[in-house]
């Protein structure tokens, strides 16, 4: 099972490049796709989900070009888009039965699968209620259920935890971890903790380009002894922000505790601290911006 993305580019209206020369190869596991707004994550996912064509480059699923033969992938694809709708007059069971039929799943298999999925996403007790009366979080869970209907080998989920409460978020993360063994999962999100909890690989995207692709441990190792906790006075903070990349600040009685990503100690009294994925993400994006600016 292999997904290869080679020199993928996507241009909108002949002007804006949403993706540029994006190359990546994936095997089973969870890929956490991180990047700022407008980085090109959703464009990449739409291309991988076969609902957008690249301007340049090729995507191969087990060696087959998905632009030429999209049904090769669609049969084993589960896709949860960032924005999607539901038919408001159908209930969850009817909606999932409909999508199961569209995905070519037989009635009996679909019925069993839907019951199981509704239990999994905690919607069993509201399964007969019209979707028009669902809250945003409940609709999102219906979206998650539909993505898993056909037991996908490639699962693409774009901001899947948006609108979910903390408990449901944890449940979904656990589900992703459980699913990842025998399939490729691509998880795009802004929430670094979601990636931290589930991803076996991380790809950071910025301005349509792949900034880095590595295992979380490797990303963290790159920042070893490069993250510092530095106590500064409140009035010194703006100047510090100008000079250093500060990932978080905490105000305490002795001053502002700033978490600084820098090659050398930012000032006297700065103590090295273990890096987090958030530090790694911010450092990678900032580094890419610096490169772009030069």
């Amino acid at each position: 099972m292999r997904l290869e993305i080679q020199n993928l580019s996507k241009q909108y209206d002949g002007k804006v490049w949403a993706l540029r020369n994006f190359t990546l190869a994936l095997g089973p596991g969870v890929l956490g796709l991180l990047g700022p707004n407008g980085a090109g994550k959703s464009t990449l996912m739409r291309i991988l989900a076969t609902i957008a064509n690249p301007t340049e480059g090729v995507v191969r699923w087990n060696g087959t070009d998905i632009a030429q033969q999209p049904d090769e992938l669609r049969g084993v694809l589960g896709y949860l888009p960032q924005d999607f709708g539901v038919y408001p007059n159908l209930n969850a069971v009817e909606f999932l039965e409909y999508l199961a039929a569209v995905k070519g799943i037989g009635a009996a298999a679909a019925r069993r699968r839907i019951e199981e999925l509704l239990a999994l996403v905690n919607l069993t007790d509201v399964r007969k209620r019209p979707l028009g009366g669902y809250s945003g979080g409940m609709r999102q869970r219906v979206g998650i259920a539909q993505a898993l209907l056909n037991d996908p080998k490639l699962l693409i989920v774009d901001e899947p935890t948006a609108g979910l409460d903390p408990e449901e978020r944890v449940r979904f993360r656990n589900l992703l971890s459980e699913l990842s063994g025998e399939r490729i999962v691509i998880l795009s999100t802004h929430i670094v903790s979601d990636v931290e909890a589930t991803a076996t690989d991380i790809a950071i995207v910025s301005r349509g380009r792949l900034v880095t692709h590595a295992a979380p441990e490797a990303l963290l190792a790159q920042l070893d002894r490069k993250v510092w906790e530095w106590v500064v006075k409140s009035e010194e903070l703006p100047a510090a922000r100008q000079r250093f990349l500060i990932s978080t600040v905490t105000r305490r009685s002795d001053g502002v505790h700033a978490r600084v990503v820098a090659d050398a100690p930012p000032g006297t009294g700065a103590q090295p601290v273990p890096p987090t994925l958030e530090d790694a993400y911010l450092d990678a994006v900032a580094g890419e911006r610096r490169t772009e600016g030069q």
Partner: protein
Amino acid sequence: MKSRALYHIARADFLERVRRYSFLVTLAFTLYAAFEANRGNIVVNLGHYRGVYNSAWLGMLLSLTATFLITMVGFYVIKNTVERDQRTGVGQILAATPVGRLAYLTGKALSNLAVVGVIALVLLCAAFGMQLWRAEAAGIDPWKLVAPFLFLTLPALVFLSALAVLFECVPGLRGGFGNIFYFFFWTALLAAGIQTHIGYLDLVGVGFVESSAKQAAHDLPDYTGGFTFQIGPHGGESLRTFVWDGFHWSAEMIAARLGWFVLAFVVLLVAAACFDRFDPSRGIFRRYAVRGRQLARGARAGLTDAENGNGDAPAIAAAAPSAMHLTPLAAGAAEGRFAGVLAAELRLMLKGRSRWWLLVALGLLIGSFAAPAGEARGKVLAFAWLWPVLVWSGMGTRETRHGTAPLIFSSAGALGRQLPAVWFAGALLALVTGAGAGVRWLASGDWAHSLAWIGGAMFIPALALALGVWSGTSKLFEGLYTAWWYAGPVQPTAALDFMGASPSLSPRVPILYCGATLLLLCVAAVGRRRQIRG
């Protein structure tokens, strides 16, 4: 502050519309109408006469064309301004501002007026161009060209703009039923203007033109009092010409036209009273408000029970992460089955229809079975195939309207299985609802009508699907189908009778519609392929 807000509501809405691809299509259609007028396919005849193409005649001809076409088709073009704010969520933002209902809706009506005004302006320019091109009369008289647009077209457009807003504010008229209702309302208004010659009823202004032109033609030799406004190719008869000096605008005529401005304002006031300000619990329609509250309560109850774990779901909520497991699908379980998709599409199509809807459909089915052969049976079939128009109009647009496109288009067989299933479901619906007439024709060996019945059942969903896929809206089919239904099977006009409602029927017509079905299905497939590939 208020006028500025009004201006910006209208401006933003206008810009949003004219920057859409569909507006270019509308302009192209307008230019085509002007081209047809120049070719002599849009004419006003007075028996064997027509006016010399001077400024007065062309101003009248093009303004009448503009008023006629815009009031008929333009309504469907502009009836989406409030709905767009609802759909995009901008309405929620606007609802939280101090802008009042009347101001908001006036801004929307002004935007409507600007859109249809651009269309009328194109036809006014065409009138100038035609006079130069045809060169039948020397000297352009700008006032005589412009005045009919000011006194005939503008009041009609102002009223239409307000009426479109009203339709969007009244539950029941907002959707497909309103689109169909408008066509009949417009037809009634047109007939009232022509038959009564009462200025206050004559929205399109045909009655005005008729009175004025007949008066001028009164003394022409061989003139017996005929008047025709015709859109479409005429018999090729060469017409004699006479010089028409234009309207003599009396105070009474102008007052009658200005009356539409007053009526437009009244319509806006009614719309403001009905407008719910994007909150179903407001407005005067209490029934809908109660329904909306019930829905909201249902959603809240769902949240309370399911999300807070207070309902029957705690066992699931409390399930340990390690207990989560999905049974793999058996091999072969996901092999495509067309029948399954077809059943799902049929269910989706009919879901939400009330018992009353089914009862009426059943009544029409029995009626078409019981009706005697000939005109009566054809007429009942025509009504049996008007009733499901709102079901067919959802075909091809449902995925876009409800935002399910990415879910469906990323599925295997979205083009090869789901799209044919949608059409097949629509055709099955047509066959079943029209089965009364069809079965009787088959049983009596009336093969021409049987073929027309089958051809019609295939053609209607193909038309709905093709228009839906390409336009992304159900309005185009609703408007076009209703007009076609009226002109073809109801009038009846042989070439437009796609269902064989007229007693005398040439077998060539159903064969033609079978061919058109194939073409439309190809058009729909190409459009869907384009949608799938982004």
